[in-house]
């Protein structure tokens, strides 16, 4: 397939139900592959599924539900703040709502949806059949889902955490954080840590060992690179917050004194551990979005992205420097001035790799021939909006400015420009871009236009006034303000902007659901894109590709002629994947993946029960971990067919060696 420009007026591509990959496979083989990779159907099959696409889709849908909930919380806050001394929401509920908003958006929406899209797309983009550890992958999803349900069931019973998503001690400690509210927060963090670490592990191993032959590091699509960098970051960052949340839980539940200054503990220890996670977290959200932008830019300019090595270096640099700036969240604490200088320098420096990426995208647009579809529109919107957040971020790196602006609405404006502009805009663009692959149908371009403009205007109307409010002294996390302060008008404007955002997202939702039924049939590669996920049907079959494609160039599909070279020889009657060497991607061996099982779900339920019980009684932990033996057994129980086959092959090998 060569790079063919889309016609200016979009005409639905001819339905290509044929897998583009090799014609020389018969129907029986295909049916066998299907049965091997999705053996159980019905509800039980649904619960047992370990296919990365099923898990990925569920993950994405769950994250979208949490996005909706977090958005409703934001809307409630905007209503309360729309005028001075409003009495719609009292302080107790308001504090719960803003804590839930931050917690939901960071832990239950932004990070999970980025990894979820990775879980869905990475195996397709690197030309393999599943992730490296499919059962573990399913476990990660169930733990995440139950963690979210756990958090919200407490919130709906008025026990939502109320100490902020950053949960500073001692406010969140046993002396001041009364009841079970903060325990719920600390445990929810544990749930998401498990899920995030699992997803990270999956990404690293899958990307390192399961790339299609020929997909060397220099040919890896930038989205996959971004997932790899993110996964490595998650491993370091989540370890830090895991330590912190366990220490907090222990302080609260078993009277350790890590953070209690009266007993020799330290309140700043929490801030260091939390922000050592919390700042990289921003990049964990942002880097996958950069990967999405690079894919979209490539596809819609019909040109390999400009400066690929620089782009990869920029991703890695961002991921590395991202760990060196956490103290800029603490400039107003008693951190020494000389130490602050280091973090100012690092915070300034991190704008360079992002700048390089933006320059490279602009150069790609310059060299290519931009084709205006909704995804590309969101990319342009992303650059326009995100730049404001990036530049205000450079301003905040300055200590004298930061100590004025920190903890005010200036920072609220800044972080929303970064996260909504830098992550949500590309994310929605990515939805328009990959929706046809996942569902087999196109989203409406007309509604896409409405969606884009409403969102674009809404974001600016909501978040820009916040900068001015911050400079006029409006502090964060306040449930009300007095009239004489003069913050009313700008707050009202921000609330109006929030209404526009809601309208934009409603258009997105309508488009999302309507297109499932009425969208034009997409075909395998409606955008004429270059990466491997477009070389199979939309939606892809359970086994992704009939045969493993061989990659010949960084340009992926564009470099192929009429025929795509493949590697054959994987069994079709068992879930086998090709393992390749990490550096050269030479086929190394065939690896049989585990079959679907209910064990991950059972294990997740027991873990959830254990963590929930642990906030009431310490007995939750010993009892829960004993019960975990049950799913461990289920998990390790050999598959009958697999077992007999192994015996047969073992016997065959024995006979062969005897004969020899």
């Amino acid at each position, binding site marked *: 397939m060569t790079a063919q420009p889309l016609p200016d007026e979009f005409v639905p591509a001819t339905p290509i139900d044929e897998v583009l990959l090799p014609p020389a496979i018969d129907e029986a083989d295909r049916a066998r592959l299907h049965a091997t990779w999705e053996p159980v159907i019905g509800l039980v099959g649904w619960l047992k599924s370990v296919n990365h696409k099923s898990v990925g889709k569920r993950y994405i849908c769950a994250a979208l539900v949490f996005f909706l909930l977090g958005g409703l919380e934001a809307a409630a806050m905007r209503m309360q703040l729309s005028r001075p001394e409003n009495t719609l929401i009292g302080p107790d509920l308001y504090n719960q709502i803003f804590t839930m908003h931050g917690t939901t958006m960071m832990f239950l929406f932004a990070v999970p949806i980025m990894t979820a899209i990775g879980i869905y797309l990475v195996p397709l983009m690197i030309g393999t059949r599943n992730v490296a550890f499919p059962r573990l992958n399913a476990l990660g999803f169930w733990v995440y889902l139950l963690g979210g349900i756990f958090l919200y069931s407490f919130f709906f019973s008025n026990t939502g955490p109320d100490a902020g998503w950053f949960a500073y001690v001692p406010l969140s400690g046993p002396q001041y954080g009364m009841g079970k509210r903060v325990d719920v927060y600390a445990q929810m963090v544990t749930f998401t840590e498990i899920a995030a670490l699992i997803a990270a592990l999956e990404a690293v191993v899958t990307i390192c060992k399961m790339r299609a032959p020929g997909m060397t590091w220099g040919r890896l699509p930038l989205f996959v690179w971004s997932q790899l960098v993110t996964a490595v970051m998650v491993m370091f960052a989540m370890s830090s917050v895991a330590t912190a949340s366990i220490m907090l839980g222990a302080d609260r539940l078993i009277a350790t004194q890590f953070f209690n200054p009266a007993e020799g503990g330290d309140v700043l220890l929490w801030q260091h551990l939390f922000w050592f996670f919390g700042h990289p977290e921003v990049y964990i959200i942002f880097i996958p979005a950069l990967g999405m932008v690079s894919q979209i830019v490539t596809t819609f300019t019909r040109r390999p992205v400009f400066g690929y090595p620089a782009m990869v270096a920029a991703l890695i640099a961002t991921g590395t420097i991202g760990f060196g700036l956490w103290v800029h969240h603490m400039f107003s604490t008693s951190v020494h001035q000389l130490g602050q200088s280091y973090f100012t320098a690092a915070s300034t420096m991190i704008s360079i790799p992002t700048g*390089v990426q933006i320059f490279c995208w602009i150069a790609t647009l310059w060299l290519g021939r931009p084709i205006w579809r909704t995804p590309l529109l969101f990319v342009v919107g992303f650059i326009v909006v995100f730049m404001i957040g990036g530049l205000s971020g450079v301003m905040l790196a300055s200590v004298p400015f930061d100590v004025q602006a920190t903890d005010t609405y200036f920072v609220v404006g800044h972080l929303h420009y970064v996260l909504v502009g830098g992550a949500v805009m590309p994310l929605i663009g990515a939805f328009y871009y990959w929706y046809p692959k996942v569902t087999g149908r196109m989203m409406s371009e007309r509604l896409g236009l409405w969606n884009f403009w409403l969102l674009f205007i809404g974001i600016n109307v909501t978040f820009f006034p916040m900068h001015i409010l911050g400079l006029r002294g409006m502090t964060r996390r306040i449930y009300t303000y007095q009239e004489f302060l003069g913050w009313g008008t700008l707050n009202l404007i921000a609330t109006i902007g929030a209404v526009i955002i809601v309208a934009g997202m409603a258009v997105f939702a309508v488009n999302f659901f309507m297109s499932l039924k009425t969208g034009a049939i997409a075909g395998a590669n409606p955008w004429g894109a270059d990466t491997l996920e477009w070389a199979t049907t939309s939606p892809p079959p359970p086994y992704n590709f009939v045969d493993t494609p061989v990659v010949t160039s960084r340009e992926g599909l564009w470099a192929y002629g009429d025929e795509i070279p493949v590697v054959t020889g994987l069994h079709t009657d068992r879930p086998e994947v090709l393992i390749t060497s990490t550096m050269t991607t030479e086929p190394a061996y065939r690896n049989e993946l585990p079959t679907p099982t209910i064990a991950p779900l059972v294990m997740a339920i027991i873990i959830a029960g254990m963590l929930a019980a642990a906030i009431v009684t310490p007995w939750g932990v010993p009892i829960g971990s004993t019960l975990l033996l049950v799913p461990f057994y289920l998990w390790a129980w050999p598959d009958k067919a697999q077992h007999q086959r192994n015996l047969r092959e073992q016997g065959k090998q024995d006979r062969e060696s005897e004969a020899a």
Partner: protein
Amino acid sequence: MVAVAVVTYILVVGALFAVIRNRRYAADDPVSPGRHERAERSVKLAVLVVVPVLFLFLLYNFAVARNVSRMPDGPLLTIDVTGHQWWCEVAYEDPVPHNIVRTANEIHIPVGKTVMIKLASHDVIHSFWVPNLSGKKDLLPGHKDAIWIRADKPGIYRGQCAEFCGLEHAKMALFVVAESAAEFTKWIEHQREPAPTPADSLTAKGQVVFETGPCAMCHTVASTRAAATVGPDLTHVASRMTLAAGTLPNTRGNLGGWIVDPQTIKPGAKMPANSLEPKDLQALLAYLGTLK
């Protein structure tokens, strides 16, 4: 700083739109090697401009930070500010113990003089912030820190707690009153005086209500039997501008409302509702009114 940011923004977004527009016209051009080289040169140039600009920005920051944090002269006076949920305790240090002045949510300083503020917290983390006088500095339990301020113009500067500190974080303000040296001396000398002895039977009764009722459980009025330190020192409460940490103007009516039903005004505040007989309340208000 803002100007540099705005210029950068205009340049980059301008380049983006120039590129987009440009392609409309040149859509059919094949990409010549020359174009590619031009793009490469432009990207390199952009990076070469950005890096030194950021470096200069960094040096400039260090210079400003150094200047801002250096105290211009020795402090004239030192004030201890201690954060409580949700008010600020203020104490003027003095080598002579009975000259130490204790007040709450209101700091008087002489104009043009450097004042050292020592920061501590009684409970959770708060942050001291008077935007027009200085940046934020957190009040951290277990850590001691200090900041200096100087008001160059007389006036009333509003400050607000800037670190989320729980339920009533929104209603934790303080005021810095900058006044001439003479006015300041008059103020602090007045604050050093104990509370006046009640001059009539109504205020005398009010004092009894204060000393024997729930008020004395938490508050101090110097030279009376009320000497608890849970809540703000009320020795000169009538001289303050606001009640409940900047929540209400200090009027007799507001004070009565605050005493009877603080939880409606500031839900969650540590002050409980007090059901006083109307006569007792009137006497108490009359007494508190004398604590100028």
